[in-house]
């Protein structure tokens, strides 16, 4: 930015306020890591850091897709089931064959896209509440997956080495998984910020009535959001197979709530209109780090969910409190102007 005018200063202030959420999560992460490292110095080893990023990648990928949906004032609860289905399906697809990795990825994402289309059409064209639709598809997809799997599982021995390498290998010391996630995150984040159609997702969530009056193609955008969420869940499914090799039917069972937590903790307003994919990804990283920290500190892993839940409540309470304060301040300021 070369132009440093007075209003650029104002802009930077607004940007800073909007970024405050991302910054505070980052701060929380740093404090968490610092304290843990002080207690156990091996926490920050190369392997330890690598593990955290590997573990956070899939969650962050899902959080990016979920952000697109949540920003339009909707929700996608079916992502956990889609990951499970795609992980198993692509396992079946590759078992015993030497498939091209790209083909596997495309097939996985197509399955995800199909699930996204079903969600999106029901929500946008038939105007069924998103919570109900995606809760329904959560169970339907899970049921299909269980029926198909019938107690079988995919074993790492059946998965081609090239695919397993995608899940565990690295380039220049950076594992593929976080690399893929970062590329996707930056692409989606840039699209949402820089493109007119990207801004429309925020407009829809911010004020649906005004969006309609502004002539925004609401149904198309909501459908797009669900398809993107589905495609990314499909991608996450293939990566799940690549990372773990062994896949049972209920892979990623219950992950939908983890994803929603990550998104909300990351500052995406659950009522839409506000938040970024970067925040959501940071939220995913924070939740994953907490998981690792608990292991290092030898806290019973049962606590992990409780802590994630507490963090979610904290995030929502802070948001609400801030909103009330801002409203109150504005109300009083307007009153003084009026008087």
């Amino acid at each position, binding site marked *: 930015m070369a132009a440093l005018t007075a209003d650029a200063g104002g802009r930077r202030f607004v940007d800073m306020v909007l970024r405050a959420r991302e910054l505070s999560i980052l701060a929380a992460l740093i404090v968490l890591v610092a304290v843990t490292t002080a207690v156990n110095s091996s926490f920050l080893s190369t392997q330890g850091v690598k593990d955290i990023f590997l573990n956070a990648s899939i969650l962050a990928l899902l959080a990016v897709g979920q952000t697109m949906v949540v920003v339009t004032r909707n929700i996608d609860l079916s992502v956990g089931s889609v990951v499970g289905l795609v992980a198993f399906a692509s396992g079946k697809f590759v078992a015993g064959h030497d498939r091209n990795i790209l083909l596997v990825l495309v097939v996985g994402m197509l399955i995800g896209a199909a699930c996204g289309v079903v969600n999106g059409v029901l929500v946008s064209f038939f105007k069924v509440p998103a919570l109900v639709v995606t809760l329904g598809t959560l169970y339907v997809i899970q049921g299909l997956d269980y029926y198909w799997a019938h107690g079988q599982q995919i074993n790492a021995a059946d998965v081609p080495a090239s695919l397993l390498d995608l899940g565990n290998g690295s380039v220049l010391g950076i594992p593929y998984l976080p690399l893929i996630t970062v590329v996707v995150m930056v692409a989606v984040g840039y699209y949402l910020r820089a493109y007119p159609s990207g801004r*429309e997702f925020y407009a829809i969530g911010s004020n649906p009535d005004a969006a309609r009056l502004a002539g925004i193609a609401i149904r198309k955008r909501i459908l797009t959001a669900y398809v993107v969420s589905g495609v990314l869940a499909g991608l996450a499914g293939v990566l799940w197979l690549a990372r773990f090799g062994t896949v049972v039917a209920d892979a990623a069972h219950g992950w939908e709530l983890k994803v929603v937590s990550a998104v909300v903790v990351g500052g995406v307003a659950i009522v839409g209109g506000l938040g970024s994919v970067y925040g959501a990804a940071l939220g995913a990283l924070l939740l994953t780090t907490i998981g690792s920290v608990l292991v290092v500190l030898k806290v019973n892993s049962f606590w992990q969910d409780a802590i994630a839940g507490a963090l979610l409540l904290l995030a929502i309470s802070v948001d609400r409190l801030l909103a009330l304060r801002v409203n109150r301040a504005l109300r009083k300021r307007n009153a003084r102007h009026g008087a």
Partner: protein
Amino acid sequence: MSESPPILALKDVRKAFGAVRALQDVSLELWGGEIHALAGENGAGKSTLVKTLAGVHRPDEGQVLLDGRPVEFHGPGDAQHAGVAVIYQEPTLFPDLSVAENIFMGRQPRSRFGRIDRRVLRAETAKLFVRLGVALDPDRPARGLSIADQQIVEIAKAISRDARVLIMDEPTAALSGNEVARLFTVARTLRDQGCALLFISHRLEEIFDLCRRVTTLRDGRYISTELLDGLTADDLVQRMVGRELDTLYPKQETTIGETVLKVSRLTREGVFTDVSFEVRSGEIVALAGLVGAGRSEVARAIFGIDRYDAGTVEVGTVRLAGGSPTTAMSAGLALVPEDRRQQGLVMEGSIERNIGLTQLRSLRRGPVISRKIERDRAADWAIRLQLKYARLSDAVGVLSGGNQQKVVLAKWLSTEPSVLIIDEPTRGIDVGTKSEVHRLLSELAGQGLAVLMISSDLPEVLGMADRVLVMHEGRLTAEIPRDQATEETVMAAATGQTRQEAA
């Protein structure tokens, strides 16, 4: 008339919502270089007409003509594309997006690869604000803007579209004198540039000040289109109302008794300030004012829905603790809210269920609610209020607006209140039922009920009230006895032109 066809016109348009005929055979012609006024009472169909022009509604019959050729707007986008811009009563902004983004949503300036060019976006917005003579930061979020500033953003939006037709649906309702003047300057500039403007306002002097021609609607019907030159305010009111007030407002003589509701120095910061008044038994007190003056908010605070920061509310001799509708109800208050469908009724519920809702405990036989008591009670009220219905088990949603209002009234009258607060008693109710509601209110006051009536319908205020309280920007600005209340005195106080001390 000029030779070229009007830019935008409606021809014999009809539009119905269920059983309600919102528009019947309405025609309207908007010519370039002219500001056209649309006059009519609340519920006359003005908003429906605006939404038809804006492509939100499609006419059931009749045509929309653009440059003399029939067009069909399939949505607001089509109308915008055709150069029709609308400034709605309630600004429609995106609170989370920046002011600049709000203005250019859907038409953002692009740079390479179709990205938004934020520098141009900001510069264009700043240019618009300079042209409008306002100091707003293009980058600030729309959340928290005052109504006047939101309005400015809407106007900037319309100007930036190079709109050929600008429709303003009561844009001045919440503006101060300076802001109105600023708006009018902009409107005249646009007119001189060849735009066609449609202007809607309840303030008649604004219509006479700004417009050249006026079309009047009454109860969804087209009444007349004429030049304002040579027309008087009385003529216009006559066309809007179209009937003698006395027959419409059957006011009974009542004996006015003791004070039953006493409100002292009630304040909710930023909403209303230092509001004091009394309502006596047998009296109908109207609370008049412009939309957004804080009238409904005062009612909500009295009834305990919203908290207040200072002041007291007394019913009889009891001082109410704020913030509790339950205590307000047991003290003898009843509140018939503004929005029947959202706040007054359970639309899917039956008539009898809705009437019984306020008195569930008294409907019990033993621990459970008796359907028989509920039904008998409802039947009793239906007769007393002359409710028109097929079966008491019908959903209230199928009733007409007037009959729905009677159900809300029955629901609250069954609590045997001493004070009835009624917010916009006849909004969206057809004329016939309107006078029935009025007669009912008069009778209730005759029986000793204290009535506080909030109304934006000026003839209703003048016809019904024993006393008129007027609010302007959160303060009581006048208290006018019945014999001195005229359209002029009430409107003057409502627009803040006079500041009498409220007694």
